[in-house]
């Protein structure tokens, strides 16, 4: 009888798309966008050449002289891949942090990790640790060290009282993050010359201009590894959305899960910020948009967010490189310019839908 009912008077359904086909479409679009990212720029490279250069390189053959091998393989491919990896990573950490603190508008930067990474990077630029290699770290190393130190600090504060409660985690993250960004501002003011200030600002806004094959290595491992860690906990993430008590009743060790999620998202955020600076809005927007399209189940949401994040950042980086003739825009500027209005639109839609 119930099945009859379900056929004859089906109630309105949430409009979501099937995740499998959507992921395939996003995958194809990502390949197209990556090709375009390599082909377009101050020197145009035909798309056919892009793939022949990549094909020869992957096959281990010597590059053909007279082609754009250097531009394609040494400059644009690493940069396009970095954009894809950072975008995918931001999509993943955004999704996980929103479940971790049970707020669909949360952002991994809320937990202070990026402020720590920024402080590390800015300290390296201004105090010259990166240039001189005083600690043997370099800019990204300094940023990652800053991220890990902040993670330890936020962990220590948030765990007091037992449970990594969402509010406690956010308050600890925000407070510590603000504290650290105070230091960062002080260092920027102290910066010796205009060139230093410029490179600091560029870094703080988020940029992919430092891309090279060496820089790709760590995110190329960390992003897929992070995805696997999160995907394995997709059901736990779902359960957290309903509340800690519900999750406990579903057999989730909530405190342990929060600890694991906080660790995975912090390390991944640290890696991403270390290679590209704190790119605004992507981690907030991507899961939010994807949730509207495929729904809230993390088993689907995580892969779709990763793909969409990758696609978004590759496309935005094309704009950043080609919008102005004389110089490129930091990618974080464009994501903020797109992201803020998009967020307002989504909020409007959400409130307008009368839920």
């Amino acid at each position, binding site marked *: 009888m*119930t*099945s009859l*009912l*379900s056929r004859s*008077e*089906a*109630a*309105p*359904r*949430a409009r*979501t798309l099937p995740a499998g086909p959507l992921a395939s479409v996003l995958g194809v679009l990502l390949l197209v966008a990556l090709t375009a990212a390599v082909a377009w720029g101050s020197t145009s490279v035909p798309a056919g050449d892009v793939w022949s250069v990549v094909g020869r390189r992957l096959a281990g053959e010597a590059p053909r002289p007279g082609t754009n091998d250097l531009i394609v393989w040494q400059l644009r491919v690493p940069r396009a891949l970095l954009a894809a990896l950072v975008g995918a990573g931001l999509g993943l950490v955004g999704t996980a942090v*929103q*479940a971790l603190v*049970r*707020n*669909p508008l949360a952002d991994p930067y809320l937990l202070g990790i990026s402020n720590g990474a920024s402080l590390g990077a800015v300290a390296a630029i201004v105090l010259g640790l990166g240039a001189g290699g005083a600690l043997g770290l370099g800019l990204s190393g300094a940023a990652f060290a800053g991220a890990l130190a902040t993670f330890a600090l936020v962990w220590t504060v948030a765990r007091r009282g037992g449970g990594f409660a969402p509010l406690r985690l956010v308050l600890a993250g925000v407070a510590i993050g603000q504290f650290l960004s105070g230091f960062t501002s002080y260092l920027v003011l102290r910066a010796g010359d205009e060139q230093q200030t410029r490179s600091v600002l560029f870094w703080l806004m988020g940029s992919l201009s430092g891309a090279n094959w060496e820089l790709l290595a760590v995110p190329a491992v960390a992003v897929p590894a992070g995805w696997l860690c999160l*995907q*394995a*906990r997709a*059901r*736990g993430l*779902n*359960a957290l*959305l*309903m*509340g*800690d*008590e*519900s999750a*406990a*009743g*579903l*057999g*989730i*060790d*909530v405190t342990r899960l929060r600890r694991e999620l906080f660790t995975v998202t912090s390390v991944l955020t640290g890696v991403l910020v270390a290679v590209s600076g704190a790119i605004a809005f992507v981690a907030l927007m991507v899961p939010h948009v994807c*949730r*509207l399209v495929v*729904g*809230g*189940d993390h*088993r689907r949401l995580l892969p779709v967010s990763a793909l969409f994040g990758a696609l978004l950042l590759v496309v935005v980086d094309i704009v950043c490189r080609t919008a102005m003739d004389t110089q490129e825009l930091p990618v974080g500027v464009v994501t903020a310019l797109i992201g803020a209005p998009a967020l307002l639109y989504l909020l409007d839609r959400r409130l307008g839908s009368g*839920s």
Partner: protein
Amino acid sequence: MRIDIEDLHVTYAGRTVVAGAGLIAAEGEITGLVGPNGSGKSTLLRTVYRHLRPAAGRVLLSGTDLRRLSPAEAARHVAALPQERGGDFELTVREVVAMGRTPYKRAFAGEDATDRDVVARALADVGMARHAGRRFTELSGGERQRVLLARAFAQQPDVLVLDEPTNHLDIRHQVELLALLRAQRRTTLVSLHDLNAAASVCDRLHVLHDGRVVASGPPREVLRPALLAEVFGVRACVVDHPLTGDPLIAFDHRAPEPDGPDVPLSAPEQCSGLVPGGHTGERP
């Protein structure tokens, strides 16, 4: 399966909320937990579905200490309907119910035929099958509670633990939800604010007061005017419900005096029944 709670102590936010509570939820019965606000009902239930860890004492599931089971194992036996609303994350009704399968699934495992079957049956049991594709957050309060109950059913538990399941529901939805529980004939441990609902739906009641169980037994034996006065601080008389014959508690809403001294109220004599035109249990 049954639940035995032995000398349970629970501290919450630095305060001892449950202080030596003991009770039994017998197999196949609906066991009710009543008591005033802050008496420790929710806290006690939270230890049964393992959101809180007891400071002392034990919760036994048919003789096995619940703490000796893994979280997932425990959740295959005990399912909860807590008092929380969750965030707005675009989950559909079906997705919420499918969460009930969590304790049965390994990492990366997809849904199999059994899961789909169990979820479909749980949705049908609460009459929400045709709403499976709707967003959870756009449901009414009564529909939400039914969906969360279906999620608990999808855990295929031996024991259901429900914390104030009728809160915020209008009277019709309260009646429907409690009828649904009765029809299940599962071992159920439920806290209820509404004493009349508790009297009609529960096989046995435990009255919690300041973290201890102060009375246990069938509703008719437990819900006496003297106890209502002492534990809840209200004047009431208990009569037979004219329709069902269940105990019906008629509260005196004029008392206590708002400015009066905070002294224990004297209990009126047990009333024998509703007498048209007359009253019983008058003020002394």
